[in-house]
Each structure stands twice: as structure tokens, then as C-alpha cells.
């Protein structure tokens, strides 16, 4: 909200939904959303730094409250992974699931920061455009989903071998008959394309929509007394409901990651 100029709904929305970009080369691709990257790194460093700090002082005797809290989260993830993945989950899949859950949850949770107060603070820091929620940027969710997708292909090849994987692409799910090969390939292609798309867009859509609703309620709150009252009430209600969405979306994203990696380990 630049001072001195008239704030219209359009400028308000676009102000809140514009990333702070930095160009690192020629072309549209070579730009960087500084806010997304910084907030993602910040949440990641804070949460994994916390985990690392707690684990470094972890004891196998009676745990303190901090360690018990971390263990609670870790064992919750471990239980979920155990039910979906049958193999040595401790080597990679379970810690990766923990990473995904904690990081996505923390990035989603940035949605709880009140948009306009944060915008005011960022303005004072000299940041005109700054979006707090990394997962409301499609780049983040695609980055995560594509990483999982690559891991999926990596584990497919690692477990079944390159030949085994290609055999599966060609012969599964309908059968070995050469007449069915094109259908199988088409089917698998659709599956391999739709997996990262649905994986990333589900998270992005939910969090982005949540942010938009906060912005709309913020705009309503500026329209007068009744707008302020209802904007506040509904904003509080939406924030409470958002606790569920934030956790649920992080959980869904984590579960899908585990399921995809688990499917990569199993032969059909």
C-alpha cells in the first residue's frame, strides 16, 4: 500500500499477490521470487534447525518436553509411513516424509500471519512487494512435486532396474500383449504427468485460495463499520478453519509423497 495513492480493490489485491522478483538472466524463466525463496529457507532453517538442535541433545533416558514433542511428531510420521511403505523406511522414505510434512506445514502456516500488518512491516523494511506464504507460489509446490517425481523415477530404476521399469511402463497395467503396448504407454504417460500436477496444484490451490479469502475479508473490513465487524468475525473464523487446512494439506502432501515413493518400490 503505497502511501499517497488511492487504494482500489484491484491495486490492493495485486499488491498483495505480487512477488518480489529479481532477474538473474535474460528471459522470463531467469527470474527469482526472492520473497518465496527467503521465506521458504527461513521456515526450513528454523524448523530443521530446531529439529537438529533437539536431536543433538536427545537422550534415550527420560525425554524433556521439547524432545517429547519432537518425538511425537516423528513417531506420528513414522506410523503413517509404516502403514504405506513396506521396506526399510528408515533409510530414506520416512525422514523424507518428515521433511516434507514439517516444511510444508511451516510454509503453509505463514498464512496465519495477518496480511496487512505484515505488509506494513515489510513496507517499513523497504520491501514493497513481499508474499509471506511460499506454498501460495506455484514454483514452490512444483519444485516439491517434481523433486518427488524425480525421486519416484529414481527409485523405480533403482529397485527394478532400467529394463524392469521400462517393462512396467510398456506392459502394465493392461498386459503383455504387444497390441496393448500403446495403450499401456499412454496410460502410464497420463499417470506420470498427472501425478506431479495434482500433487502440486492441490497444495497450491488450497493455500492460494486461503490467502485470497483473507485478502477479500481484509478488503471488506475497510468498507465501514459492518464490514469491519463481519470482516473481523469471518477473518477469525477463517483463520481457525485454516489451522485445519494448513495441517491437512501438509499431511496430504506428505502422504502422497510416501504413496508415490512406495509405489515406485513395488513391482506390478
Amino acid at each position, binding site marked *: 500500500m503505497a502511501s499517497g495513492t488511492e487504494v482500489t480493490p484491484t491495486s490492493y489485491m495485486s499488491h498483495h499477490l505480487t512477488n518480489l522478483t529479481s532477474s538473474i538472466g535474460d528471459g522470463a524463466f531467469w527470474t527469482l521470487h526472492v520473497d518465496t525463496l527467503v521465506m521458504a529457507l527461513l521456515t526450513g532453517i528454523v524448523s530443521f534447525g530446531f529439529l537438529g538442535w533437539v536431536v543433538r541433545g536427545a537422550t*534415550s533416558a527420560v525425554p524433556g518436553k521439547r524432545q517429547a514433542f519432537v518425538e511425537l511428531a*516423528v513417531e506420528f510420521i513414522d506410523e503413517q509411513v509404516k502403514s504405506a511403505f513396506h521396506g526399510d523406511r528408515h533409510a530414506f522414505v520416512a525422514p523424507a516424509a518428515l521433511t516434507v510434512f514439517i516444511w510444508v506445514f511451516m510454509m503453509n502456516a505463514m498464512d496465519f500471519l495477518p496480511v496487512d500488518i505484515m505488509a506494513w512491516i515489510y513496507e517499513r523494511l523497504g520491501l514493497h512487494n513481499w508474499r509471506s506464504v511460499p506454498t501460495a507460489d506455484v514454483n514452490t509446490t512444483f519444485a516439491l512435486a517434481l*523433486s518427488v517425481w524425480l525421486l519416484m523415477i529414481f527409485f523405480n530404476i533403482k529397485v527394478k532396474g532400467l529394463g524392469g521399469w521400462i517393462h512396467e511402463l510398456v506392459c502394465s497395467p493392461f498386459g503383455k500383449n504387444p497390441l496393448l503396448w500403446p495403450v499401456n504407454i499412454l496410460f502410464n504417460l497420463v499417470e506420470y504427468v498427472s501425478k506431479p500436477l495434482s500433487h502440486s496444484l492441490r497444495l497450491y490451490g488450497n493455500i492460494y485460495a486461503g490467502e485470497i479469502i483473507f485478502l477479500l475479508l481484509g478488503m471488506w473490513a475497510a468498507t465501514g463499520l459492518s464490514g469491519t465487524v463481519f470482516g473481523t468475525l469471518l477473518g477469525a473464523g477463517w483463520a481457525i478453519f485454516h489451522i485445519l487446512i494448513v495441517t491437512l494439506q501438509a499431511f496430504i502432501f506428505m502422504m502422497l509423497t510416501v504413496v508415490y515413493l512406495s509405489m515406485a518400490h513395488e513391482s506390478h
Partner: protein
Amino acid sequence: MNINFTLISQAMAFAIFIWFTVRFVWPPLMRAIETRQKTIADGLAAGERGKRELELASQRSADVVRDAKQRASDIIAQAEKRAAQIVDEAKGAAEDEGARILAGKKAEVEQEVFRAREALRQQVADLALAGASKILRREVDAKTHADLLASIKAEL
């Protein structure tokens, strides 16, 4: 919705965070948890064993007490029997002793009586002999009638 280099930077960050968790967070925490689980399981097992041992010990101690009671009552019964026996023996011995003393005394008395009777008989014979000799002083010669006198003495 514009895809740009942010995606690659985020993917790199993601890879680093996964590496960190896989390397530094998960294994030590799991180790701590598993060690604790083992400690707790061991503790529970030890408790169970202790309970069982206590049960066994109390059973054994009850056995020992019952045995001791049995033995004590046996000893008491034996002692009572022995005491009764001793009393009986003493009674028997006393009776025997009494009987023996009585018999001895009786024999002594009989002997005394016999001896007195002998003495008396001697005296009576002497008296009779004296009386007869006094009467028959003149006609009876003690020497000649000695065997007659002796036969009289023996009849008395």
C-alpha cells in the same frame, strides 16, 4: 502462475533439507527412541521376573514355615510321649523298689521271728530241762538221758 528459476532454487533447498533430515535428524532420534524402548522393555521384563521370584520366594517361605511347624509339633508330641514314658518307668521302678524293700523287710521280720522262736524254744527247753533236772536231780543222770532231752528239745 509463472514458472521460473524459483522452482529450481526451491528444489535445491528441498534436497538440502531432505539430506539434513536423513543424515542428522532421523537416525539419532530413532536410535534414542529405540534404546529407550529397549530399556523400558527390559525394565518391564525385570519387574515381571521380580514379581515371579517374589511369588516363588513367598511360596518357599510358606513351605518352610509349614515344615517347621510340623517339626515343632512332632517334637512336642515326641517329648510328651517320652515324658509319659519316663513317668511310667519311674513309677514302675518305684513300685519295684517298694516291693523289694517290703520283701526284704518281711524276710528280716520272718528271720527275727524265727530267731526269737529259736531262742524261746532254747529257753523253754532249758527251763524244762532245768525244771526236770531239778525234779529228777536225784534219779536222772544228765549224761545218760542227754539224747532223750535233746529229742524233747527238738519237739518244742
